[in-house]
């Protein structure tokens, strides 16, 4: 009960450090999800709807990416952005940009994979009919995405769930710097290590609450879309 009280005190009491952590978590994961959606949804529909040489290989890579250990992605991004790495000149290491990059790499396979499954689940006869009605290739893809919209939303939920709760990659490439790259997950790790369990649990509750509220909102949207689909 104390932990709940502590969590409420941290939030309502206007603890600026805690709010900064919450806002940064949402910013980093939100931007990463947006980028993943912009790249992943078209790519997922492209892979799902078209045949091309090497398609099976691409699908295998996407599926592998869906289960990739975040800490390995963190290590790869760390090496990429480190001073001697190929993208070292960007100066992104230990900044939110590095965290966004790592989270995009984590979320992208999830968004692509689930979008692909969603468009594949739409009746192929409908696609033929859409083409027969005079839709251009782009119009056909858009119509199929609209028909698969509930599944595409699941793709985004899966992508967001995968990155908001992730700790290994953001810890490695962000460095958990107070006021700069500290997010909820890395703050929880730090507070636990310090023995400040009440703060750690309070932050964990906040993280759970945020994830729950966002999923609830997305489910609400999914319900609306399901209704629209009938």
């Amino acid at each position, binding site marked *: 009960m104390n932990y709940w009280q502590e969590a409420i005190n941290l939030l309502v009491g206007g603890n600026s450090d805690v709010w900064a952590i919450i806002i940064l978590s949402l910013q980093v994961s939100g931007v990463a999800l947006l980028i993943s959606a912009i790249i992943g949804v078209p790519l997922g529909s492209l892979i799902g709807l078209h045949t091309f040489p090497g398609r099976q290989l691409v699908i295998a890579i996407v599926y592998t990416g869906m289960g990739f250990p975040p800490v390995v992605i963190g290590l790869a991004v760390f090496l990429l952005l480190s001073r001697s790495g190929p993208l070292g000149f960007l100066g992104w290491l230990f900044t939110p940009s590095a965290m966004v990059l790592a989270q995009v790499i984590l979320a992208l396979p999830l968004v692509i994979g689930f979008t692909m499954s969603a468009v594949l689940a739409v*009746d192929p*006869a*409908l696609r*033929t*009919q*859409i*083409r*027969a*009605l*005079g*839709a*251009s290739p782009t*119009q056909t893809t858009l*119509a199929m995405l*609209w*028909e698969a919209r509930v599944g595409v939303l699941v793709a985004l939920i899966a992508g967001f769930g995968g990155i908001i709760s992730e700790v290994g990659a953001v810890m490695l490439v962000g460095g958990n710097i107070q006021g700069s790259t500290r997010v909820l997950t890395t703050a929880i790790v730090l507070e636990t290590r310090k023995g400040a369990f009440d703060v750690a649990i309070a932050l964990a509750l906040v993280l759970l609450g945020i994830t729950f509220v966002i999923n609830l909102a997305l489910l609400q949207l999914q319900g609306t879309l399901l209704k*629209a*689909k*009938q």
Partner: protein
Amino acid sequence: MNTESIYQLEAIQQRYGERLVLDIPSLQIERGELLALVGPSGAGKSTLLRILNFLETPTQGQLRFAGHTLGSRVPLELQRRVTTVFQRPALLSGSVLDNVAYGLRLRRHPQVRERAREALAAVGLGHLARAAAHTLSGGEAQRVALARALVITPDVLLLDEPTANLDPANVAAIERTVAEAHRRGTTIMLVTHNIFQARRLAQRVALMLDGRIIELAPTETFFETPHDPRTTAFIKGDMLY
């Protein structure tokens, strides 16, 4: 070369792997005619329709449409002059009116809703405009599919067994609409298993077997004095399929 032909097919072959599914040395489809295509399942009728709607590219041969010789990439403006109603109506999610309006929206038509409502009324389903498409019966869905095809005023309407498994009332409604479209000048190719329907609607009838057209004649000739004994067997119902 007949300048009135909307389609001219020369030496068209379609192969799926090694299997030859369509082999048409020559076929002209006249502008404004209603041609019925009959024959057993697997005879290549649907494959021919898919080629005529540019949904498949033949592996061999030359396809001319409206004076254009077509390759594997058919310009969108030509594609949009042809449409198909399939045996199983595939409707988009959303309302009945959304479905009928779809082709008009693709073409950025200035009066989408008005035209869609008129087309829906023409198939006797104006009262279902706001209904969800998935709530329709099979016959209603097929009539919506027909309205959706006709609202875009195609030059060519391809019908792939549009009344299979429908009750007589829906069959009659669809036949009325098809006949009306034909009167307005739409070129129609009707694939049907129902030879009585072919006789009622078509000006010419073709019998397909094993990917080939074995007889093509004016309706009266096809049914009264067919040349090929297989046509006679088909008409008499002796050909089992």
